[in-house]
């Protein structure tokens, strides 16, 4: 972590026992008090040796909360293309920053990502911190962590938001641990407490059965990862006033232990997160072949194919189709659930859809309690007729 984690408390009597115990000559006596120097390897010998228990392992450093201003967003990118969740976070950041009267920042890391930085300015960021270096082309947790931590230490934002994508969920915890601050996972709602000016971070827990609101009173920045498709994207502003701030990347100062050997793009590019129309299948289909019908229906409608967790668990379909708390959150205009009973964890991933249509044989299925239109019937009888009718309709139109 850079800093020495061994600390000497006021209880030190200056007896010097630790100096003899230390195998690395890492303790000096200064004004009759033990002081740990940079040779310390945190072996803990001194902790065991100290007769008064005055030496402790300690990571915590005091932070002066008033030093921190600004709402910062991590702009995730792959191949230079900024992930849309970053624009959603930027939109939310603008709202939070306005309430706090603080600036809006974004930080982008990669190779040749200047255009992405410019786009963030056009969408209203006051400052975009750019870490651009050929060695940063592929995402690796190590260097990206070190650069984001460096950025937070230099710019001191009060809030730092990261998209809860597979990348963000790996990177966020590492950055928060390095910065010694709290991180709230997978938030679905954010607001500012007007009295304390703290960020209220709301997230589902226990498989979506409970919502929890969490604050980070003493760590800075207040960090959260945010689910995709929760907020509208920041749009282009009329007169962008922000600027791109190029940061120097000193490759020799960042860790880089994991090598990327290859990347195999998913065979089927499933974009349920972005889809306006989704047709989903559940275990109620009774057979993996049910997805053939779901696909046909999806094709007819120009919709994406979704799936419930049990069907993915059963291996009926790739996990990238999974809708729900442990899969993707979706927010289409219309969500058609076929043979999905509607477990809470599934609902957590789709209940904010504008219109929910459910087809299920069981009139008691929980999905009907959240559906705009519930259809009690056998999907194998209803869906083929529906496909025909849609085709007829489009033929007429």
């Amino acid at each position, binding site marked *: *972590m850079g800093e020495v984690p061994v*600390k000497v408390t006021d209880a030190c009597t200056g007896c010097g026992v630790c100096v003899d115990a230390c195998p690395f000559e890492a303790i000096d006596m200064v004004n009759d008090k033990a002081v740990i120097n940079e040779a310390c390897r945190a072996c803990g010998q001194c902790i*065991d040796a100290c007769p008064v228990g005055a*030496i*402790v*392992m300690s*990571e*915590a450093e005091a932070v002066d909360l008033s030093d921190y201003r600004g709402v910062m967003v991590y702009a995730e990118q*792959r191949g230079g293309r900024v992930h849309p969740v970053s624009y959603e976070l930027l939109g939310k950041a603008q709202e939070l920053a306005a309430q706090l009267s603080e600036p809006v920042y974004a930080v982008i890391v990669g190779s040749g990502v200047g255009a992405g930085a410019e786009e963030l300015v056009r969408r209203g960021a006051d400052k975009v911190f750019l870490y651009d270096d050929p060695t940063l082309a592929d995402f690796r*947790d190590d260097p990206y962590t070190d650069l984001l931590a460096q950025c937070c230490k230099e710019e001191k934002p009060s809030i730092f938001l990261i998209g809860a994508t597979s*990348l963000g969920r*790996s990177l966020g*915890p590492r950055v*928060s*641990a390095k910065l*010694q*601050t*709290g991180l*709230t*996972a*997978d938030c679905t709602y954010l607001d500012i407490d007007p009295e304390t000016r703290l960020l*209220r971070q709301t997230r589902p827990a*226990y*498989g*979506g059965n*409970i*919502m929890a609101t*969490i604050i*980070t009173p003493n*760590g800075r920045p207040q960090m959260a990862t945010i689910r995709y498709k929760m907020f509208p994207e920041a749009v282009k502003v009329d007169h962008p006033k922000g600027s791109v701030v190029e940061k120097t990347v000193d490759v020799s100062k960042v860790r880089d*232990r*994991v*090598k*990327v*050997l290859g*990347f195999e*793009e*998913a065979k089927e590019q499933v974009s349920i997160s972005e889809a306006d129309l989704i047709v989903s299948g559940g275990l109620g289909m009774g057979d993996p072949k049910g997805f053939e019908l779901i696909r046909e229906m999806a094709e007819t*409608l120009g919709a994406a194919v979704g799936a419930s967790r049990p069907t993915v*668990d059963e291996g009926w379909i790739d996990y990238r189709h999974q809708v729900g*708390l442990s899969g993707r959150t979706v927010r289409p*205009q219309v969500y*058609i659930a076929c043979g999905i009973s509607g477990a809470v964890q599934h609902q957590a991933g789709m209940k904010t859809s504008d*219109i*929910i249509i459910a*087809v299920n044989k069981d009139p008691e299925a929980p999905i*009907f*309690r*959240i*559906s*705009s*239109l*519930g*259809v009690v019937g056998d999907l194998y009888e*209803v869906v083929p*007729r529906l496909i025909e*009718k*849609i085709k007829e*309709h*489009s033929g007429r139109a």
Partner: protein
Amino acid sequence: MSEGLNIVVPIKQVPETTEVQFDEETGRLIREGVAAIINPFDEFAIEEALRIKEKHGGVVKVITMGPPWAADALRDAISMGADEGWLATDRAFAGADTWATSLTLARCIERMGGYDLVICGLKTTDGDTGQTGPEMAEHMDIPHVCYVSEITEIGDGRVVLKRNMDEGVETLEAPLPLLITVGKDINQPRLATLRGRLKAKKAEIKEITNNDLKMDPNEIGLDGSFTRVVKLFEPEVPEAGEVVEGTPDELAEAILAKLQECKVI
């Protein structure tokens, strides 16, 4: 490197069901009367550790932080085949968020006699954060790889593995020591054998308290946590619309009408 690999699997005991209830007055979860199990994702981690040990030799140590009865989860892991069970238990550890939990576990693992590979379940079914693993790696200053779906090679102090990202599968090479998180696509966990259960019953569980770790009280448990839960509440449920019955043709017609109404066809 000495013979075989030193593998550590941090696990957590979680309620068997996620359908929890909470006390509206105190805002606390009611945990009484709910059976406790090993976090299901941790079983994939234990299984992967056992498979690596079977192939390359070594030792599998499981550790958990929790109340004394969390030892049950360790015994379950030992009955699957783990060699040692370690329990970090101290009132001072209670109420920890992921930051404090990961720091305490990191300090424990550093005292457990070396480690080459730390394997975590990718998240727990109760907290659902998936943060403790990567945070632990940072506290130990070792690299980490999340969502590992396959370990293709281990040897010469390095590992080649695949991880599932949103857009596809990455192949990575990482040095040991390393922390990885795994989910259900990596293996099929074995069941405990009767012999395993007998062994687990007699196994010694090694306890670690803060007397051993000597961590600053301000960085463990609730006091060491940066986050605070201020409110728990039930999620909002969208209002239900009409539920229709009828012949397949009528039902298809009803859906068609709805789709037309929302102008998607």
